[in-house]
């Protein structure tokens, strides 16, 4: 039994050692740019690292780091629902004395105590993607103007609709601000036209979206258009329709993930309201570095959005491939 423990601990130490050398290699890579002073380290905590959206965000952050000659470390829980783990990650970055923090909080208000702690220790905090309204000491909030972006999408949808048409909106978590804004922006763009909305909560889950579309189409086959407040749900909506053999209802997605854009190119989705996570990740690092150096940063930075259809999607897909290094 002693042997078992021994072997295991050796293995563990080996793994930990490997982790360590891995991260120090990364730092050396960015060492290339001479800064003259000790290298700055920025900690980034994302909602998760397992989706392409966050991978593109990460790529943007890393690009900024190498352009500016700083090092970044990116952490994120396995699921976006694990918000307490995110809090722990922020605390751990504070412990390891980072020079700046970039945080995309999945349950923004819950992050407040940890952010206040960072601020009290003099660490500048940049919020990305989701704002923590009550944290007034933020350097800046960088994110998509969700309302504006969804409004653009609504204007595009108007060309396909008539007065009295029924539109299904599949949204993420009720009460989540991002999805509230996206729903509202889309609805208000179509307000004048006078269409009817059916709003369903699929909690950003592809499978739930499949079920909702199947059920809604069964109950009400007269739906003229589907808008989903994230790509995952939009792709689920497409699957749900295919399952029911429906092909003539346009679907509009939101996010601009590679999957979402590909399906625009293939004609599965009619349009995709794309955010720019690469730009978001890039600007966040840039702002954190500026704040650390004492330069002023605007309190709200829009990372931009665009409606992609079959006409203009190809270029965007190329760009994303480059970001992800494919």
């Amino acid at each position, binding site marked *: *039994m*002693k042997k*078992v*423990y021994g072997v*295991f*601990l050796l*293995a*563990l*130490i080996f*793994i*930990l*050692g490997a*982790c*360590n050398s*891995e*991260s120090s290699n*990364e730092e050396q890579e960015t060492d290339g740019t001479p800064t003259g002073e000790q290298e700055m380290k920025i900690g980034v905590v994302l909602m998760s*690292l*397992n989706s392409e959206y966050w991978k593109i965000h990460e790529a943007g952050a890393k690009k900024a780091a190498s352009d500016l000659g700083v090092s970044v*470390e990116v*952490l*994120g*829980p*396995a*699921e976006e*629902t*694990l*918000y*307490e*783990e995110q*809090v*722990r*990650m922020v*605390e*751990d*970055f*504070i*412990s*390891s*004395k980072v020079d700046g923090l970039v945080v995309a909080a999945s*349950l923004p*208000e*819950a*992050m*407040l*105590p940890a952010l206040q702690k960072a601020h009290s220790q003099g660490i500048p905090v940049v919020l990305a993607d989701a704002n923590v309204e009550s944290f007034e000491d933020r350097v800046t909030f960088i994110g998509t103007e969700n309302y504006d972006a969804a409004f653009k999408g609504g204007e595009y949808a108007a060309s396909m609709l008539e007065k009295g048409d029924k539109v299904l909106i599949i949204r993420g*978590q*009720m*009460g*989540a601000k991002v999805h509230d804004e996206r729903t509202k922006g889309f609805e208000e763009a179509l307000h004048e036209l006078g269409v009817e909305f059916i709003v369903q*909560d699929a*909690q950003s889950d592809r499978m739930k979206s499949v079920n909702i579309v199947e059920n809604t189409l069964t109950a009400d086959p007269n739906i003229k258009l589907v808008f989903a407040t994230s790509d995952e749900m939009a792709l689920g909506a497409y699957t749900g329709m295919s399952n029911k053999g429906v092909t003539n209802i346009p679907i509009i997605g939101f996010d601009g993930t590679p999957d979402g854009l590909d399906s625009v190119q293939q004609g599965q989705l009619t349009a995709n309201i794309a955010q720019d996570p690469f730009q978001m990740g890039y600007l966040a690092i840039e702002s954190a570095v500026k704040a650390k150096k004492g330069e002023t940063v605007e309190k709200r930075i829009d990372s931009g959005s665009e409606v992609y259809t079959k006409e203009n999607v190809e270029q965007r897909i190329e760009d994303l491939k480059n970001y992800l290094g494919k």
Partner: protein
Amino acid sequence: MMSNTTNEAMASPTSRKKIEMKYFINKFGALLGLVLLTITLSILTPNFLKIDNIMNILRQSSINALLSMGMLLPILTAGIDLSVGSILALSIVVTGITTVGLGWPPILGLFICVGVGMLAGLINGLLLTKLRLPHPFISTLGTMNVYRGLALIITGASPIFGFSYLINFTGQANVGFVPFSFILVIVVAVIFHVFLTRSKTGRYIYAIGGNKEAARLSGIPVDRVLLKVYMISGLMAGLGGLVLIGRTNAASPIAGLTYELDAIAAVIIGGASFFGGVGTVWGTLIGAMIIAVLRNGLNLLGTSTDLQTVIIGLVIILAVYVDVLRRRSK
């Protein structure tokens, strides 16, 4: 209830030294692991052993420590409680609805939080002892979904914010520079230790885990003990929830997802046997610390969550393997 190690010591007096070593590893293996892990991490990352970070770890470990001490009881009876993560969520959202939504006095909220947990645990116990569901794995798998669903329904799936200081106190406050939540963990651990080793019910719990039928035949009120076991497990989930509210100033119906797995892991890493009858509070506490130290250290090293999951999985496998060896050597 005699522990396995004493049995071994009496059975084979041939090589005393070897047995002492075995006894030592059984008893202190997890602690040894924690110490070696700490040494390794403090060499690898300079910020690990700073007071600030140690307090950080104590704070981060406290929710899982509370949940896993609760989980220890069902596991000691050869059962399990898969619903603790959901109970935690239900407890905190009910606390949120009553104190934030309805404006009930915060002091009441403290009791509501642990009370809801205890009630949910009582239901688990009743399902097991009255409906005679075949194994708590099944009944608590069911209630895991029921409680989670209820938490989502009564909140309309949205989180609740803005708790009063009294409710946040448990998870937020420091006594000196020590997190209050950790002091709570220690106090609870002492109570649990006394309960399990000195009280009649405590000894019954080990006896039921050793052999349920024998326990029943020897006149132990098995059902009543099991009812208590699941009530305490639920109560601890509620208490863990109270700490979570304070740490995040929020009660979300999706709180506590997968917490049951961390709690089970801590109990097993701490040397308890899945077959029941073997395990201690201190071991469980060390198990919870090992998980917290690993997560914290790996974060400080900038290891991806995916790799962290693999490493924690390996630790669990090792702990179970040690248990298997221990049983085989009997």
